């Protein structure tokens, strides 16, 4: 059972949240919103490529050329194994964090 690195988990989750509307910009915006940082925004492309190589996401071109002068837009969707990983990640996170009080207050 291989765990996902956190950044991949965040990315997969962002793509899942966006559903049909997951393409470069929206994914980055979602990640920025979820993590509250804009520093690393450009860097997610490496991780996206990795996810694709691992077969967790697949890309598809938009059918009709998008707004941008006929350039197709690339959409990301979760594959089945990607979804499995996400389910696993949620399960693990839940289990690991169960019974842990709010650490910020407990400090």
């Amino acid at each position, binding site marked *: 059972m291989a765990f996902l690195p956190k950044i991949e988990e965040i990315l997969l989750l962002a793509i899942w949240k966006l559903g049909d509307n997951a*393409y*470069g*910009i929206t994914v*980055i915006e979602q990640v920025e919103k979820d993590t509250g940082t804009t*520093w*690393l*925004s*450009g*860097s*997610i*492309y*490496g*991780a*996206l*490529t*990795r996810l*694709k*190589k691992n077969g967790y996401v697949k*890309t598809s*071109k938009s059918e009709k050329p998008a707004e*941008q002068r006929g*350039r*197709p*837009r*690339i959409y*990301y969707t979760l594959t089945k194994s990607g979804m499995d990983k996400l389910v696993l990640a949620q399960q693990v996170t839940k289990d690991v964090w169960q019974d842990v009080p709010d650490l910020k207050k407990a400090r």
Partner: protein
Amino acid sequence: MNRFIEKIISGLISPFADDDVKLSLIEYVENEYLSAKEVKGMAAALLISVLRFLQALFSLFTEKISWSIEMFKNYFKIGFRNLIRQKGYSFINISGLAIGLASGFILITYIFSEFDYDNFHEKGERIYRLGMNSTARGEEFTWFSSTFVLGEEMKANYPEVEDFTRIRYLPRQAVNYKENSFYENNVILADNSIFNIMTFPFKYGSPEKALEAPFAVVITEEMAEKYFGNNDPVGEILRFNAQHDYTVTGVINNIPENSDFRMNMICSMQTIYSLWGQDDPRLSDWISYNFSTLVLLEEGYDHRELEVKINQLLEEKAGERLRSKGFTTVLLLQPFSDIHLFTPPSRGGSQGAIDFVYVFSAISFFIILIACVNFMNLSTARSFNRAREVGMRKVFGAQRKKLIKQFLSESLLLSFISLFFAMILVELTLPYISSLAGRELDISYIDPDWHIPVFIGITILVGILAGCYPAVYLSGFKPVSAIKTGFKSSAGASRFRSVLVVFQFTLSVILVIGTGLIMNQLDHMQNMDFGFNGKDVVAIPLRSRDTINSIHTLKNELKSNPAVLSIGVASGLPGWGAQYNDFLPEGFSRSEMQLMDDIQADAGFFETLGLTIVNGRCFSEDIVSDKERAMIINETAAKQFGWQNPVGKTIIRNGQNFTVVGIVRDYHIRSVFNMIRPASIMNNINHQWNPPRVIAVRISPDDVTGTISHIRNVWERVQPGLPFDHFFLDSSFDGQFRNVRQSISIFSNFTIIAIVIACLGLFGMASYTAEQRTREIGIRKTLGSSVKRIVILLNRETVKLILMSNFIAWPVTYFLVDRYMQAFPYRAELTLSTFFISTILIILIALLTVAYQSIRSSITNPVDSLRYE
């Protein structure tokens, strides 16, 4: 984004990403560009999108490397062997790239530190500064001050305004605690809410009520140490200007260097009622802009909506009055993060910080390009060395794509080796650079999460940029001709190399001429006729009522020393600027009020500063009515009012009639970065709203120290409570050039770097050519050619290329510098001589670079060079 840029981006990342990722990235970068462009302008948007792209490039690159580590290992090994085999060329390439990268990194560190200004305020994104855009009689100006009442009204009326604070800078204060007396700058008045809006952690005391009461002061750690040592000073009393007692209510941590709000002492705003009086009109008026106001908006609120609302409010409260005065005023809210970089150059006239950022980015980009060109030139020139390898690889079935990758990885290897040296260079030179830039830059500014990817991204970019042409070129050899002996690189390639050399030198020439022209400009401004003589004028600032009341005594006591030649008192010195008031000159209607600089001065002021009265007379102590009735205007004013004989005309100010008694020759009331405006000088040095601020003393140039100690003694006798403070007028006026001087020293240093790198490349090319032409030279010599002719032959080409570079660089520089100079109202002419001198200089440097090689090969004995035939 146009197709061309799109192509560049996709070309750069194609080794690391597939088509889909490429498309997605292009869209993202484009989007970053477009959305930033709307808010911050084109150049900033370009910068941001390039940074984003570099991050992506870095992440894709590391991804790729970790996937195909084996393949790259092999390429790197071969590349490394090649580097070792050709030590001389590797040295030129690596040192060039290392210097290029290092200067790029330093400039980027600088840029980051600029973007980092005031980033430590936790609520920064919600803070806005009130400003206004005002048009009066065809003149438009933007400034960021506001009225006393607006902030209060906003908080009371609009729920989205969570909080506000007003800030007012006090003049330099004499601060005293027991035996410790110092002058302090950056002392402000502010509302207690400043601690809610900005983030200033408290060391002692608490932020909740620190500035509620009048005469409360919060000081920084540094100040606390200076006055109180290591003790907790809360509750202690500081005496300001030997006049007011302030109770210390808190100590905040020192404010970081990269902040535009570096206060030393923050006094409570309540104090203003005691300083100015309860019923001072400036505290209730809707049109006197004396405070800087920051507001804190609620999360996610669009400040443009609020802008509309406050403009309606202003219209309601003061619209009529503003119009009757001929003002059109639009209030605006400036996002806090824009304050440092995007505040438009104001009356101070200095360049906006963002302009420096652009210029420096351009220069660092130039330097990196020049270093890349070296690599391209040397590796294609030496291509015949690799031709056989390429041929063999192809014969054994290597695809062109694979070969391109191989050569690219070699250039990447080189750029990473350079990265290592560049880092060392950066570390070594930063202290020096900091002193050049006039501010602390150090490695600690580099945030590993965000800057290291950018640095490495640049390194990769440089590797690809430098390597792409050689890779495409080398991999394109036909196996048959490449393996054959006597392979020669094509004429096309050598022409392309010439183009690259021209390109390199064009950039260098632009930098040289540009620096020269800006130096000219500085020279011009420093030697301009300022209209006054500041040499040997000692200025003593007046800070408290008490001092002002004893001006008479001071003057009399000072005069007792014969070395004191004359004494003047005024509301301001040249370079200080002046209040800016409404005047009604004779012959104008009430709706045509004229804005004039408003100075109050005595007759001695004219004598002390060497101001010339060109028409009429100066003020006179003997004419009592001068105090209330006389006015002297400057030449600009006379010209603007269209007056041929201004003496005797009437000008009304605030309902009071003044008679023009004289015309003073224009002098620079404001800095030389501002046009001289119409100005009026009146004789009432005890004016309530425009009090005297300085005593100017002209002293004899012999025994300056003695005279100053006389002045000090007088001061200490008359003003025992206040430490003596003085400066020389000429050196304080000179202070305005500091920024220009600083950028010149940065310019010239980077220009030298650019030339050094370009010459390194030229040196490499020269030694290569000399090597190639050994036989030719030998034959020419046996046939009777003289050394001189051979030297000329070898250098003709270089000179031709450099002349061509100058040909291109001249108009480009002219255009760029001409635009830069728009910021200066008093411009030096762009002299041709600067262009010529720079050109000759560059040619000389280039010839010196190639001289060694060419002379060496021309004096070789032909027997040695032809022996092998």
